[in-house]
């Protein structure tokens, strides 16, 4: 790990002002992804701004009947919250499918949104990777990794987001509220918080360096059933080969793109009266990649949509 300066933020303003004057600095919350990457020298921030003790962990109902989850609420706190469990069970399920209890006890909502890809070639500093070292090439494109993007990839990068939680958040139309050092507050859709790789895969999100996630807001849960499922070779403690979250008439796919992938084509087909299988096929029509991956996502999406509609629960 490269040496760095460590500073604990006294309050949000202090955190933001430190970030504004510290090029390359990173906010540190739970640290479960950032420290992992720093040990591998994939991340080499000269300064860490510890925001872990800022009072941003509340989970409260909003005036509009939704839920506001503080960015520093741990994954465990969110999945254990009675409001989340009863009204957003697909979100609770998605969180509980991620990592291990130990990781979820430490990892925060904001950190989960900011986590970087686990593409094995990104995680190995000795390999070419445009996301890690722009212009070095993409080792994954012709590599051995089994979890590549089906949607929104570019010639530069084919990595996927590893977040399970954000797939459910995308299905709930969740919004991330952020603040910058100049006091400006922005509301960004979780669905599009992460950029597609395009020509600049090294830039994960549109967030400015001094922009801090304060909270995630969920609108009231949509009418209709919810369901979540995650596919993996091992029964627990591993990343998704694919995942699907369904909330009412909204469908999001996981581990298929650099961001949680809202299946708009599938949703449109469902609105037109298509069956779950037809809707899933409509979404996969635009997918690019290996046939087996496409078949997995198509079958999974159809089944989870059906499950949500039948109200089987998740």
């Amino acid at each position, binding site marked *: 790990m490269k040496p760095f300066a460590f500073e604990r933020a006294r309050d949000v303003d202090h955190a933001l002002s430190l970030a504004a004057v510290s090029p390359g600095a990173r906010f540190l919350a739970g640290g479960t992804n950032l420290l992992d990457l720093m040990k591998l020298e994939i991340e080499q921030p000269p300064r860490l701004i510890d925001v872990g003790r800022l009072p941003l962990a509340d989970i409260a109902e909003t005036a509009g009947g939704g839920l506001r989850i503080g960015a520093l609420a741990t994954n465990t706190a969110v999945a254990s919250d009675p409001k989340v469990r009863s009204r957003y069970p697909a979100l609770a399920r998605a969180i509980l499918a991620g990592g291990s209890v130990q990781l979820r006890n430490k990892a925060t909502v904001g950190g989960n949104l900011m986590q970087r890809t686990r593409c094995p070639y990104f995680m190995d500093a000795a390999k070419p990777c445009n996301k890690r070292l722009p212009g070095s090439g993409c080792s994954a494109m012709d590599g051995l990794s089994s979890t590549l993007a089906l949607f929104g990839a570019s010639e530069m990068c084919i990595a996927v987001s590893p977040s399970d939680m954000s797939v459910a958040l995308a299905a709930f139309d969740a919004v991330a509220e952020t603040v910058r050092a100049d006091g400006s507050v922005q509301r960004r859709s979780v669905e599009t918080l992460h950029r597609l790789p395009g020509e600049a895969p090294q830039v994960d999100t549109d967030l400015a360096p001094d922009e801090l996630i304060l909270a995630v807001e969920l609108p009231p849960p949509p009418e209709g059933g919810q369901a979540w499922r995650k596919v993996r070779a*091992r029964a627990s403690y591993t990343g998704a080969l694919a995942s699907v979250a369904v909330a009412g008439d909204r469908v999001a796919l996981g581990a298929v793109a650099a961001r949680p992938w809202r299946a708009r084509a599938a949703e449109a087909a469902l609105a037109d009266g298509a069956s779950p299988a037809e809707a899933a096929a409509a979404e996969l029509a635009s997918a690019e990649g290996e046939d087996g991956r496409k078949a997995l996502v198509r079958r999974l999406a159809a*089944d989870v949509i059906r499950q949500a509609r039948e109200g089987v629960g998740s």
Partner: protein
Amino acid sequence: MSTVRDWAAPNPVTENRSGLIGKPVDRYEGRLKVTGTAPYAYEVETPAPPLFGHIVSSTLARGRIASVDISAAEAAPGVVRVWTHLNVPAQAARGTRLNPRSQRASNPALESDRVEHYGQSVAFVLADTPENARAAGGLVRITYEAESADLDFLSSLDQAGPAPGEEDARIGDFEAGYTASEVTVDATWFSPLQNHAQMEPCATTAWWEGDKVVVHTSIQMVKGGQHALAETLGVPSDRVRLFTRYIGGGFGGKGQSYDDLTLAALGARETGRPVRVAYTRQQMFQATIHRPAVQMRVRLGADRSGRLNAMALEAVTHCARNAPFVEHAANFARNLYAAPNRLTGHRLVRLDIPHAGAMRAPGEAPGMLSLECAMDELAETLGLDPIELRIRNEPEVDPDNAKPFSVRQLVRCMQEGAQQFGWERRNPVPGAVREGRWYVGMGMATAIRGNFLLPAKAGLRLTGDGVATLTQGMTDIGTGTYTILAQITGETLGLTLDQVRVELGDSDMPPAPGSGGQFGAATAGSAAYETGMVMRRRLAELAAGDPRSPLYGEDPTLMDFANGNIVLGNRSESLAALAARAGPEGVYVEGGISPAADARDWSQHTYGAQFAEVGVDSVTGEVRLRRMFGVFAAGRILNAKLAKSQITGGMIWGVGAALTESNPVDPRYGSFLHQDLGGYLAPVHADIVNLDAVLLDEADDKANPMGIKGVGELGICGAGAAIANAVYNACGVRLRDYPLTPDKVLAALEAKGL
């Protein structure tokens, strides 16, 4: 030379009058392990504050180091030394054996500019803290000149050559027999490269005491490690004192030493400070040995009744270019089923990747994943139950050499297993059982693994407090060696377990071969037993010759040992009193075991039957274990609790082999795709559902004086095949490409229109 007839007479272990043999006592060192106070190699207390080493690994597969720049690393905070091949202290040339009896030759680190595999050590940093050492490692700049390399096994199969010094084993005329068979199976299986993934990374703590180096390292073979380091340093082996008292998993991967041992010893010598060096998890994957991939063609020919007429297993496997190793994946078949016409053999591909080597049940573990599925296919073709097919091919004598079996309860294992597992509830029609979105199926397979006895010694001291201390240059890698040696010693001397101590893992102690090949318990245990018998004779003679003893003048051969006493008729004396009179050091004896001259006149194996029930997700192709059960026969069991732990642990390795474990080589770089425990999927707790095993009553009087055999590797044998057969029974998909991951299962389901 002894004979197995010497072992036939009743002895304290086989009579088991105190009942210590077989007793499910708690692990001897268990309290230390559950309190976190068992010091592993990296953790031992040092005589002075240590320095910390970090190894820098090659990112090239084959070629040479073109340039080195260590200036930034040397200037980094806390750095004490930075070594590459240009400035590492002198070591003996690779392969040097100053002492011809050294079990291992010189194994120098950073020896030259040559790079022979990805992950090879290319630089070493010593610093005041682990953080500084590792950060400085990142500042070492090395450029390489690449040379062409052979990295991809499957695309190099045409380069496969004979395994060195080996010929195919042929009995009868396989080709003729196969051609004449009414029913045949001809299929090829692939078992991938796997990693040991021990939880404790390789590590060494070293310091010097004068001209003698003390090393605590994590290694399965005490003498091998001591000799390798002595030869590398160019010193006699008595100037290396090696300790390996607690080992955080080995599984064959720590059968040898690695560069942490060499560099820690050199670093400590050059700086005059104790040094700690550990491999990173990434280095464990890239720079230690692995189980090589095996491609196995199996051909079976049988008549309509299911009797095998011809059987061939032809394995192709791989090893590092300059480190020969053969995964003997076909050998087990030689002893398993009767068939008059037989062919087994191995071909080897040399690759420029890290060294292949032994991993839990080398040979059987990947090999049985093929034949035991081929038998399932044959049974289905014949319309026979898989157990019945195997019973019809049960040999009277070893089909490889016509030797009698010492004891063989394979059929009983299958029959008892079938009964307890509920095998009769299996629907033989694939895909016939459905629960919700799950296809459900059952499968079975047999298990066979050889039994070995190697020469070993032990020391035993009885002191005036009545405590017997067994010492042996043996290891306990989690197998239970400490515990069973205490049980054997206690039973042999008529002592309770709290009157017995066991000290292992010290090169100054009487030597034993270490842990591997499931020979540990039989080998180390037999030596402990024999040493106990030496002690009995010695104590009896002492008593008979000592006027102060109540047994003075009596015939020592008639004296018995019980309840801490030496006894004859109604006279007795405590062992404590006897030892106290012998002096402050008590009584010390050494003893040992050698294989009997005629032991190999019998075919000696351990056996088992594996049963599995799985669910296959009809939507996603995920395979999940629903239950698993095994019945095993492995001689007399020394500790029912610990033996079962060994067996179920092995079965779980079979689950990993069947469903998740694989590490492909990236042919562009020569590195493994997975270099951490997030990518390489060893089973986690949620994967293992309702798994249990039983061990049959048995004693093998041809194996050793105690009639015991090994259990450490038997559990993995056939376990994965039972799961693959269950997958077929569940959903009708025959997959011969391990592991059976969701992508492969789903592709097969799609191909069937499911």
